[in-house]
């Protein structure tokens, strides 16, 4: 089945892309990897008259480290992020989450910037980027700015991006020294699905003690957007990581989530699974186990 026809512009610079979005008639959409946009066009959920492709824009691809920060070009694919030695060494949480996205074929196409601009609620990567407190670099008709990822997601598939703005890069600060991090994903149907619930966490233990000095928890599939779980984080901060503390944090995460019902599972089921998977991830991080995929 053919896609509904659209015109295509293929600018060579970010400035030209911004101009191309604004120029011409009808609805324009950006296309990066196409893993989200093309199915939406096919299903008739969007009907753009023009696509502006980012494929020929120079400088949007690649991974680099700048003053201890990780810089990801918006067109960098999940597969690239997953395999990059600097990401695996310094930001293992991000490599782990990127490696859990869908299937190898989708990971070789889907891009970091595209996923953020799409604001997928059940994203694997967004909970990790929320925990890592990434900054999202944006270019638009009024220049460039950085949107803290905590302020990017505004509602169901809705972001703080202004009309005509383009995500150009993601800047990820270094993890605090000694921090433990992990991502777990629970799929109710098949392994390559979006997560019914995805949980990312960063824990920093107090120096020389067993108390938790800092906790960050990011959730996917738990609300209309990817979210942090501040009540769960406060339940952990400054506390000894006992089973009871972890259970309280998991309970808090389930309570503060605002899950939706869909074909993957009901809101009630999601809430229960948030409790289970937050608890399991925290217990594994406490034990110092490297968390890969689904913990036991």
């Amino acid at each position, binding site marked *: 089945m053919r896609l509904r026809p659209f*015109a295509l512009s293929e600018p060579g610079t970010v400035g030209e892309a911004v101009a191309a979005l604004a120029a011409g008639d009808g609805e324009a959409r950006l296309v990066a990897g196409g893993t989200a946009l093309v199915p939406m066009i096919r299903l008739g959920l969007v009907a753009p008259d023009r696509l502006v492709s980012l494929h020929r824009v120079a400088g949007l691809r690649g991974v680099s480290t700048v003053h201890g920060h990780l810089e990801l070009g918006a067109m960098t694919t999940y597969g690239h992020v997953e395999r990059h030695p600097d990401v695996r060494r310094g930001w293992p949480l991000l490599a782990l989450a990127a490696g859990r996205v*869908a299937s190898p074929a989708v990971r*070789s196409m889907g891009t970091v910037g595209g996923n953020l601009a799409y604001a997928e609620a059940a994203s694997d990567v967004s909970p990790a980027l929320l925990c890592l407190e990434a900054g999202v670099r944006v270019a638009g008709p009024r220049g460039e700015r950085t949107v803290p990822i905590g302020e990017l997601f505004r509602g169901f598939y809705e972001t703080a991006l202004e009309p005509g703005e383009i995500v150009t890069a993601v800047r990820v600060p270094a993890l605090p020294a000694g921090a433990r991090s992990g991502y777990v994903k629970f799929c109710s149907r098949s392994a390559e699905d979006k997560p019914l619930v995805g949980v990312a966490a960063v824990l920093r233990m107090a120096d020389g003690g067993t108390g938790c000095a800092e906790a960050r928890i990011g959730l996917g599939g738990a609300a209309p957007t990817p979210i942090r779980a501040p009540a769960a984080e406060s339940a952990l901060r400054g506390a000894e990581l006992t089973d009871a503390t972890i259970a309280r944090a998991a309970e808090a995460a389930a309570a503060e989530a605002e899950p939706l019902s869909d074909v993957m599972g009901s809101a009630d089921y999601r809430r229960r699974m948030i409790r289970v998977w937050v608890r399991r991830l925290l217990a594994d991080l406490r034990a110092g186990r490297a968390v890969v995929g689904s913990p036991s």
Partner: protein
Amino acid sequence: MSVTVEFSLNGRPCCVEVPTHWTVIDLLRDRLDLTGTKGGCGEGVCGTCTVLVDGEPARACLMLAAHLRGRALLTVEGLERDGALAPLQEAFARHGAAQCGYCTPGMLMAATALLAGHRDGAAGRALTDGQVREALAGNLCRCTGYHKIVEAVLAAASGA
């Protein structure tokens, strides 16, 4: 609206004019008469249209044909060498790793990427059943023939 796209197709230069709203599978099947690549869900989920772009698996139903510019596309028609099936294809035939055959081209391409990556990255270490299943997780077989497919890929990996 059309665009001219130059790319490498199964090792040979290719230049086509293609409508801007065509995806790679439209181009392969309806312009280039390469019907080995099968269309399935059209949403990137079933894996039957899997091709390799610059050596990495990609969904032909999701990728705009215009985005092939400057890249190397490998389809199932490009697997054989000098008229002989590739060892992976031989292994599929020998292990009976096909029933209706509709998912087979996509399975072959996903497995080809896995084997190439494994050769480059993990010299000397045997490919595991789990690695094969993970690499093929995005390719559905509705005849439920997964066991034979996994066996065939493992056999090809070990040179058996």
